[in-house]
């Protein structure tokens, strides 16, 4: 054994100072610091998928040149806290885009721009984030909307459930259009663009709460193209409403109150898939109160109803559309469901049901 000579230089095999671990597979607090890590996250995950001329400018605010100053501005915002994040037929990213696109569409506007704010829980998987952002990008492409501004915050583990996404949207409503829940008129027909309850059941199934296997897919879809085509041919539509949380029954009750009219619904005509019907039987849910993310209630003059149905049915998202009811002078502010037996019952807003959060 040779004695060590202190003047001899230490052999350096690799760095002596431990390099900080640079996490690539999970979100950490540093990703929300506003510094280099935030910058990298935005570049690598968000810009690469969602990039466009507005985001590329990298400013605190997007500047949008308005070509047409004629018209009315539609604005809407929605926060998405769905659990689980991925389910059959969709994910939180697709819901976040479609929710706001469809809300803007109900005003008669063609949605053009969205903003997106992300609140991410520390420890969230980078792969999941990538998957969600990809889904947002694909849905934006389908709906032909652009995300022009965004924000990312990271919160401590336990302060959020994976990821929350807020989106806001903007669109121009043509000058001549006045749509809204307050414009339903006695004599109008009530249409629904397809089967009810698919989203609600798909989410419960993904939570493992059905207790049996099913292949029910969420209906989450952007409806702006279908509705745009409809409005081009039939501008005289009085109400469009997206029956998401609270389902068809709650949405119609809101409209009945807003317009101070009554609504008669015919149970036999309401489209519900056999799978959803059976799942509801087993769990004791009423499909009229289950959430939808790709359906539209359309209220318009009765003499236009057949034309409208024909136009919607041409679209893949409207293939199972039905005429389900009519607007009446009777029973003001109440929605009356007529059964096949000749009896009827009042549909109220969703009250006290135990359902997990689903949108």
């Amino acid at each position, binding site marked *: 054994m040779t004695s060590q000579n202190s003047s001899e230089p230490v052999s350096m095999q690799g760095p002596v100072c431990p390099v900080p671990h640079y996490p690539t597979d999970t979100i950490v607090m540093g990703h929300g610091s506003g510094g280099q890590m935030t910058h990298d996250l935005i570049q690598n995950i968000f810009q690469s998928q969602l990039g466009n001329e507005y985001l590329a400018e990298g400013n605190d605010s997007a500047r949008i040149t308005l070509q047409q100053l004629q018209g009315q501005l539609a604005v809407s915002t929605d926060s998405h806290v769905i659990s689980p994040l991925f389910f059959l037929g969709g994910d939180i990213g697709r819901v976040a885009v479609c929710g706001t696109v469809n809300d803007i569409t109900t005003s008669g506007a063609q949605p053009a721009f969205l903003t997106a704010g992300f609140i991410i829980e520390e420890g969230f998987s980078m792969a999941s984030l990538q998957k969600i952002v990809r889904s947002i990008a694909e849905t934006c492409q389908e709906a032909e909307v652009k995300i022009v501004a965004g924000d990312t915050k990271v919160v401590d583990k336990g302060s959020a459930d994976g990821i929350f996404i807020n989106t806001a949207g903007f669109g121009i409503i043509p000058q001549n259009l006045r749509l809204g829940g307050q414009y339903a008129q006695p004599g109008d027909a009530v249409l629904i663009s397809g089967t009810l309850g698919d989203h609600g059941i798909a989410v419960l199934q993904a939570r493992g709460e059905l207790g049996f296997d099913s292949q029910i897919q969420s209906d989450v879809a952007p409806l702006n193209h279908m509705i745009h085509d409809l409005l081009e041919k039939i501008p005289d539509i009085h109400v469009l409403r997206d029956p998401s949380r609270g389902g068809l029954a709650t949405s119609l009750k809101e409209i009945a109150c807003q317009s101070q009219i009554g609504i008669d619904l015919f149970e036999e005509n309401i489209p519900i898939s056999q799978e959803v019907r059976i799942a509801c039987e087993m769990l004791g849910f009423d499909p009229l109160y289950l959430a939808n993310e790709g359906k539209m209630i359309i209220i318009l003059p009765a003499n236009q109803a057949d034309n409208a149905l024909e136009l919607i049915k041409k679209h893949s998202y409207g293939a199972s559309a039905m005429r389900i009811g009519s607007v009446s002078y009777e029973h003001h502010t109440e929605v009356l469901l007529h059964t096949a037996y000749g009896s009827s*019952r009042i549909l109220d807003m969703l009250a006290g049901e*135990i359902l997990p959060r689903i949108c």
Partner: protein
Amino acid sequence: MDKKNFLSGYRDAALVKGVLQQIKNRITKPWTIMEICGGQTHAIMQYGLDQLLPEEIELVHGPGCPVCVTSLELIDQALWIAQQPNVIFTSFGDMLRVPGSKKDLFSIKAAGGQVRVVYSPMDSVIIAQANPEREVVFFAIGFETTAPANAMAVIQAEKLGLKNFSILPANVLVPPAMHTILNSPNNRIQGFLAAGHVCAVMGYWEYPPIAEKYQTPMVVTGFEPLDLVNGIYKAVSMLEEDRVGIENAYSRVVTFDGNRSAQELTRRVFHPVDRNWRGIGMIPESGLGLNDTYQYFDASRRFEIQNIQTQESKICIAGQVLQGLIKPSECPAFGTLCTPQSPLGAPMVSSEGACAAYYRYGKNAK
């Protein structure tokens, strides 16, 4: 029979209307009939069958809602257990909003308590396996229908050697409640629709002596519109012909003997005990307690529950509703002070509660 036909056959509007016409042809005087089961109350309201029956028939809604009749003492015990650190308290979802003396399970969950909704007691056993460091308690409520599954959970927990699983036994039994209703000096009930699902498990061998003793006709009845009108038709026929006894209008599901192995399972784990019914009072031998062999799994013994002082709402008159003495809409608080959002009593909470059925299906328009 495929799934579609299986459901739609018993909902066929033409068939239902045909039986309704038969009831109209058959009836000559007023009759008061009680449907025992809250599930039937809801189906009647959901399909609006009460609007379609002849005026002579008054349907009175029975006490067959398990969360409604679970005693305040048991609910307060459940709330006490759920608040203990290191406990995961599991329950059917219906129970979470049922008011105890001061709180409900939802508010305990909101305050950080581990309260989880399960669809089956076996889910609680799985939770206990996955969380060996925590006490997992299942609130074993229900009628004879849930008793076999509750028994199975206890047997399974014993087989698995689970030291951290227990149940709070709260099962109740239908026949003793029928005795109490028919014995009451205020009784108005002339005929019964017996609960089809309870009879699917228990059969209907327990009922002939009750029918005989009180000279009351009974009909085992299912839950679809055609089942219900058929059960009512049979009950009206028996009343009109002055016949007592029990008939089966749900023979596709119910046999006289019932499910003997499910009954055996229940007997292996439980035995009848006196039990308090909320709003009704003590009914002898109307509940299920754990047999000696399984008392290890009794949560009310495992935890040293302290300071339970029950206090019932002064406004809620659910007891009169549960005994069929008044209709929910006749309660002064109905739809005003008491709604599904802020229930004063359990019948406004449960999916089987008569008050909730009236509220949900628009009977609030007095």
